[in-house]
C-alpha cells in the first residue's frame, strides 16, 4: 500500500517535472512569437518583402545549412527544428554572407496552387523567425516551389516528410 502510494507520488512528480521541462523547451524559440496559436504560423507583422525581386540573386549555396522540416499542412517552425534557423541567423548576423533565399516546399498532396501558397508561408515563417533573431529583413528573400521540386521522389509518408521543407540558399 505504502509502496503503491510512493510510486504514485513518484509518477506525479515525474509528470510534473517532464511537463515543466518540456514546457520550457517548447517556449525556447520565442513564445511570444507563436502566441497561443496552436495552428502555428508565426507572423511578427507583415514585414514587406523586397519590392522588386529582379535585382536579387537567383540562387545561392544550399549546402551550408540543413533544411527545416514541417508537419503536414503546417507552416509552424517546430521547436526541434528551431536550432537550424538559429544557426543561419548566427551566420548572417556575423556578416559571413550577404543574405539568404528561403525556399519553401511541400509534399505532393493537395492542390498545386494551394501548395504554392503553403510553401510561401513556410518560407515566411522561417523569415519571420530570422528577423526575430535580429537578421536584417532586407537580406532575406522568400521563394516558394510548392510541390514542384520534391527532394524525395516516393509517394509515401517517408518521402512526403522529406519534401515538406524550408531550404536555405545562402548568397
Amino acid at each position: 500500500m505504502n509502496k503503491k502510494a510512493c510510486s504514485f507520488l513518484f509518477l506525479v512528480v515525474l509528470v510534473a517535472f517532464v511537463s515543466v521541462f518540456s514546457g520550457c523547451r517548447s517556449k525556447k524559440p520565442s513564445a511570444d512569437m507563436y502566441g497561443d496559436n496552436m495552428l502555428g504560423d508565426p507572423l511578427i507583422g507583415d514585414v514587406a518583402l523586397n519590392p522588386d525581386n529582379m535585382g536579387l540573386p537567383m540562387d545561392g549555396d544550399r549546402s551550408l545549412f540543413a533544411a527545416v522540416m514541417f508537419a503536414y499542412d503546417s507552416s509552424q517552425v517546430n521547436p526541434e527544428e528551431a536550432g537550424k534557423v538559429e544557426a543561419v541567423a548566427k551566420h548572417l548576423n556575423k556578416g559571413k554572407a550577404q543574405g539568404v533565399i528561403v525556399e519553401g516546399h511541400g509534399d505532393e498532396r493537395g492542390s498545386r496552387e494551394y501548395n504554392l501558397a503553403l510553401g510561401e508561408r513556410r518560407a515566411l515563417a522561417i523569415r519571420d523567425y530570422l528577423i526575430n533573431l535580429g537578421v536584417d529583413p532586407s537580406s532575406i528573400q522568400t521563394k516558394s516551389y510548392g510541390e514542384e521540386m520534391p527532394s524525395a521522389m516516393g509517394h509515401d509518408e517517408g518521402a512526403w516528410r522529406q519534401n515538406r521543407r524550408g531550404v536555405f540558399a545562402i548568397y
Partner: protein
Amino acid sequence: MRRLFFAICVVLVSMSAVAQRVEVRKSGEGKISINLAGYRTGGDTASRTFLSVLKADLNRSGYFKVTSAGAELNVAGSCVSGGGNMKADCQVYKVSNRQRLLGKSYKAPASGVRGLAHRVADEIIYAVTGKKGMASGKIALVSNRTGRKELYVCDMDGKNVRQITKDRSIVVGPGWMPDGKNIVYTSYKRGYPNVYMTGRRKPLSSHGGLNASGAVSPDGKSMAVILSRDGNPELYIKSLRTGFLKRLTRTRRGNEASPCWSPDGNHIAYVSDTSGSPQIYIISRTGGRPQRLTSSGTENVAPDWGENGYIVFSSRVGGRYRISMANPAQRTLRVLETDWADYEDPSWAPDGRHIVCSRTASYRSSIYLLDTLEDSPVALLSGSIDWFSPACSP
C-alpha cells in the same frame, strides 16, 4: 454537430437526386440520332480525317448519337481538298419533315482540317439544339514531357498538342485571357515565381515573394492574384492598366489560393485555410466580408466559376479527390460520380455541360472529360507522361 448532420443530409439528398437522374437517362434515349452516311468525302487523308473528327465531335458533345440508319437527322454534303485548301459543304435535315436546319459552306487550309471539323461540329450543335458546343475550344495544360514543366495547348478532343513555352523552368496553374487568345500562367523563368502572359515578355506581376494564380476578370481589365509582398500570401486585385493593387484579404494566419471570377465579374471565389482546412470562399470584388461556400469534405480546392453559374471544384471526401459543383445562388451541391481515382483541377468546357479535369491513378496524372449529364468519363490525354492543371478556353 447539427450543422454537420445537416450538411451530410444535403450531400446525400443531392447525391441520390443525381443517381436517379443518371438512371433515367443512362439508356441514351435523350440523344438525337444523326446520320452522316450520306456525307461524301474524297479518297484523300484530309477529307477522311474531316469526317472522322466531325463524327467524334458530335458523339462527344453528348447531344447526338451518330448512326448509319434510321436517324432523326440527316447530314448531306461533301468535303473536298485540293491545292492545299479544304472546302466542306454541310446541310442538316430533319428526316420527319425534310426541314433544313443548317446549310453552309466552309473553307480552311488543309493543315487546319481538324479545326474545320470542330467548327462544323459546333455549328451543327448550335443549329439543332440552340446550345453552344465545345469542339472549337482549346485546353491549356502543363506537362513534364520534356523533363521540365512547360505549357501546352491542345484541342478539346485531346489532339493537336502544341508546346507553348520553352523556358526550361516550371509552369504552374495556367488560365485563359477572356478573349481566349492568350494564357496567363505562373513561371520561375526569371528565378522567382512571377505571373506571365503568352506573347508578352514582361511579367504581369513580379512583386517580392510569391506571385501566383493570376486570373483575369471577364472585362479583361484586372487580375485577381495571390501575392506575399506584405508578409503573407493574400488575395489582391491588380489593375492591368495602371498596376494599382487592391488587397482583398487580411488573414495573417491563413493561406489564400486559386481565385476565379464570377461570370458577371462582381465576385471572386477562392481557397482559404483560415478555418483550419482549405475551403472555398466568395468575396465581392470591392472587398468586405467573405462568405464560405463549402462545408462538407475535409478539403475543397481549385474552384472554377462557369458561365452557367456553377462553381466546380475538387473536393476531398473519404481520402480521395472528387469533382463537385455548387450553385451559390441556389445553394445546391452535387458530387459527380467517378471511380476510385483522384479527380482534381476541374475546368468548365465552353459548352457549360462538360468538365475537363486531371485524373490521377497509380501516381500518373492524365486529362479527362466529364459529362455533368449522362455520358461516361472520356480520357483526352493519357499515357506514360504526366499531364495536369487543364484550363478550358472560354
